[in-house]
């Protein structure tokens, strides 16, 4: 966790998150607090919020053209709640609402724009509802005003979906209310019958009977969802769990109506009303539980990608989630563009294979739009972000079919298969029970039939996998280990071989030593080298770049050759950096001037050789402990593109002798993994995504280790931030425990169903109790899996 997380806001005292605002060395959690603080400071005489002073505060300038589209009538129509007689209302989602000072500030924006009549904040939903006069101001003005005071609304046309969802909730609550009301009253009406030991007068029986029957009709309306869903699924020729429930409700109602009208009994009105009431209550409870479990306010598990941002001529690394509209980003060779942007540099060569699948690079000129997911090839480009970073979009691209790997076995497939046969089994068992009991006691037969239909719950099968793996993924994400999707957890557990790349993965570039040997370089030559290496994300290039002083120049032409090096052209001068064989071709003298544990980078400027850079790689802290721990259960292999010089050192550090191969070109790595997989092994490859793209794709689980780059290899299954590489054994263990959790939950659900069927068949379970047990079981299964995963994580010290 960053230190910044613990700083309390100077005004309200809440903890500031990463995007805290700094002002005069004080930190504020949000814009509202900053404004209020300034107000209180400026008008120190009064000790209360002075609204009139709001006008004096200068808001942040807003890009004028950005919200131009809000003037279009079609867009306005979609976003406004209503627009009548010049008065319009809009509900906007403001993600920056944070504390009570925000509420105060936002509910007083009418002071800042005369056209705004009223504004009302819903704090929990982070929404503001603005009523404004269309003759004095416009939707665009409202949005621009909110942006300028730091509460930029998150606009999307999918806001329409949110409206539907809200209406659904209202309907459900109404139905629960009706069902509950009728249930309680029917229970009261049933009391005289129960308490009278059969001596109740006929008049009462008849009257109360019809009253109960009448009260049951609204309950049927409340349970209408089940009928609708069952009917829909029959139309689609598909058996869903709503069918048994609908049959159960129907048969209880028909039996009740028959008994009351013919006067043969009290009917099942109380059971029926209770059944529907508890089912609906279960639905509400489920919704709330699932919603809480899947909505995390401090959702920090973003892509652990970092990107280079240029601000006031200063370059800094930021995480990809901090990318904002208007930021100037520098994208180097092989890096991914994280959000839709405009190209500032003259031209760019983009590989859209991640987005469209087409590997042919596209040339883009200055001022044209670049879509997120594009990979830059060639020299560094500068671009300006025009759309917010959407992690979900990149994740969707990542999960595209093109990059999908074939999976043989998956627990989810098993669950789906069982679920399909489950409902058939339930219908068969219930009919069996009905037929058996019909001979003995008709009333009991109805009881048994309905109870079986209601108590059966396959929900666990459908819910276990997403909730267990979802929690696991979230815990991984908090630890900067971002998995592509649920299935990866299962694959991780099945691994028997782990392959590590050396440079950049086992070694830590930041702390390695670099020195130069050879002819003295003048300023110009150093500048050329710095300019060339600036465009490369290879660890060695970055080290050389950091080693040299001076300002880099823009280059005309740049390309990298895998396994050899890089070549750049600046105003006609050609610069090359790379391996010995490439810079000194044909020079095969056996004199090996590389010392153990050192790597050498040669270079030439206009074919003139000067000398070499010698890099002594430093291994990451604790990396050998991890390798040793892993070697207890998995086979460890090291593949490196580097020279053999480190072999002895590495062997000395490892407890068990491991297989090591050096001077591996990307193709060699790919072939090696291919062979391993063909011979039946399950391979996990850990590399830096740069030269290992093919290898990562081929392996069962490919983990791309990232540092200060946004090198993204879509063939990988997971991204791991280099600082958390040491947690790899813990990740493996949590994966294993999660799969256990899934099996346990399946077992529990199965046991529950068996016990439920047993009791129902013996006529020991009333439909009422069954109705309570059914949603209870699904909620308890979900809670169990989530809590167990969290508990396991805590024990492994991952959470």
């Amino acid at each position, binding site marked *: 966790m960053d230190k910044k997380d613990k700083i309390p806001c100077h005004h309200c005292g809440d903890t500031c998150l990463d995007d805290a605002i700094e002002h005069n060395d004080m930190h504020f959690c949000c814009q509202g607090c900053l404004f209020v603080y300034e107000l209180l400071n400026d008008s120190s005489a009064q000790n209360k919020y002075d609204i009139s002073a709001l006008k004096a505060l200068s808001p942040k300038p807003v890009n004028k053209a950005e919200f131009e589209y809000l003037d279009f009538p079609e867009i306005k129509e979609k976003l406004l709640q209503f627009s009548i007689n010049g008065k319009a209302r809009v509900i906007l989602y403001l993600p920056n609402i944070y504390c009570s000072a925000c509420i105060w500030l936002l509910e007083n924006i009418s002071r800042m724009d005369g056209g705004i009549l009223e504004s009302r904040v819903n*704090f929990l939903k982070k929404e503001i509802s603005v009523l404004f006069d269309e003759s004095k101001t416009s939707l665009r003005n409202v949005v621009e005003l909110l942006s300028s005071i730091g509460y930029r609304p998150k606009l999307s046309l999918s806001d329409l979906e949110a409206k539907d969802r809200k209406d659904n909730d209202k309907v459900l609550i109404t139905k629960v209310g009706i069902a509950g009301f009728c249930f309680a009253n029917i229970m009261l009406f049933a009391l005289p019958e129960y308490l009278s030991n059969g001596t109740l007068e006929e008049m009462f029986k008849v009257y109360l009977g019809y009253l109960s029957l009448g009260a049951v009709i609204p309950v049927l309306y409340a349970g209408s969802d089940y009928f609708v869903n069952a009917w829909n699924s029959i139309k689609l020729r598909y058996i869903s769990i709503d069918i048994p429930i609908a049959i159960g409700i129907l048969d209880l109602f028909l039996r009740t109506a028959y008994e009351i009208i013919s006067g043969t009994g009290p009917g099942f009105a109380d059971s029926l009303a209770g059944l529907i009431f508890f089912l609906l209550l279960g639905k509400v409870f489920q919704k709330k539980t699932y919603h809480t479990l899947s909505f995390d306010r401090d959702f920090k598990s973003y892509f652990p990608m970092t990107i280079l941002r240029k601000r006031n001529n200063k370059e800094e690394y930021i995480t990809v989630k901090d990318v904002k509209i208007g930021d100037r980003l520098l994208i180097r060779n092989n890096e991914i563009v994280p959000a839709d942007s405009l190209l500032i540099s003259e031209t760019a060569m983009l590989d859209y294979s991640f987005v469209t699948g087409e590997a042919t690079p596209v040339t883009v000129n200055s001022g044209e739009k670049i879509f997120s997911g594009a990979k830059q090839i060639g020299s560094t480009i500068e671009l300006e972000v025009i759309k917010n970073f959407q992690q979900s979009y990149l994740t969707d691209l990542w999960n595209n079919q093109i990059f999908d790997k074939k999976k043989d076995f998956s627990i989810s497939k098993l669950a789906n298969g069982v679920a399909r046969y489950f409902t058939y089994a339930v219908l068969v068992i219930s009919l069996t029970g009905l037929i058996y009991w019909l001979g003995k006691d008709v009333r009991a037969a109805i009881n048994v039939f309905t109870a079986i239909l209601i108590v059966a719950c396959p929900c666990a099968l459908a819910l276990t996998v997403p909730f267990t793996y979802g929690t696991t993924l979230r815990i991984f994400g908090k630890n900067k280990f971002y998995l592509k999707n649920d299935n990866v957890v299962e694959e991780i557990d099945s691994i028997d071989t782990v392959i590590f790349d050396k440079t950049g993965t086992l070694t830590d570039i930041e702390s390695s030593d670099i020195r130069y040997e050879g002819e003295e370089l003048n300023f110009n030559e150093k500048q050329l080298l710095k300019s060339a290496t600036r465009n490369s994300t290879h660890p060695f290039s970055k080290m050389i770049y950091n080693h040299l002083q001076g300002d880099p120049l823009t280059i005309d032409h740049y390309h990298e050759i895998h396994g050899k090096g890089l070549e750049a052209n600046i105003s006609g001068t050609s610069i090359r950096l790379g391996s010995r064989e490439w810079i000194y071709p044909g020079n095969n003298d056996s004199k090996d001037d590389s010392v153990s544990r050192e790597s050498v980078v040669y270079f030439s400027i206009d074919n003139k050789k000067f000398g070499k850079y010698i890099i002594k790689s430093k291994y990451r802290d604790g990396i050998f402990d991890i390798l040793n721990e892993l070697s207890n259960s998995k086979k460890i292999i090291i593949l490196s593109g580097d020279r053999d010089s480190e072999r002895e050192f590495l062997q000395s550090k490892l407890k068990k002798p491991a297989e090591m191969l050096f001077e591996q070109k990307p193709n060699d790595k790919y072939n090696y993994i291919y062979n391993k997989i063909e011979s039946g092994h399950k391979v996990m490859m850990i590399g830096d995504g740069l030269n290992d793209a093919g290898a990562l794709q081929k392996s069962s689980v490919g983990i791309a280790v990232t540092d200060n780059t946004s090198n993204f290899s879509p063939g990988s299954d997971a991204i791991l931030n280099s600082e958390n590489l040491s947690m790899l054994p813990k990740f493996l263990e949590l994966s294993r425990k999660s799969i256990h959790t899934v099996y346990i939950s399946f077992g529990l659900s199965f046991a529950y169903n068996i016990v439920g069927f047993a009791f129902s068949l013996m006529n020991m379970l009333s439909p009422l109790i069954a109705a309570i047990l059914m949603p209870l079981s699904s909620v308890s299964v979900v809670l169990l899996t989530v809590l167990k995963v969290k508990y396991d994580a805590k024990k492994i010290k991952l959470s």
Partner: protein
Amino acid sequence: MSVILILITVSFSVAVIFLLAFIWAVRNNQFEDTYTPSVRILADDQESGKVNSSQNNIK
């Protein structure tokens, strides 16, 4: 003793009125926001007239 039937009818009808009131409240978004009003009252009321009158305009 049969007066009890009339009593049951009347009290049930009264209860139904409350049910209808509940349905109206849910439809009218009364339960939409259960948190913000508690914070809102803490802010100082500078302009009393404006706030009260515009409340009625909001649906």
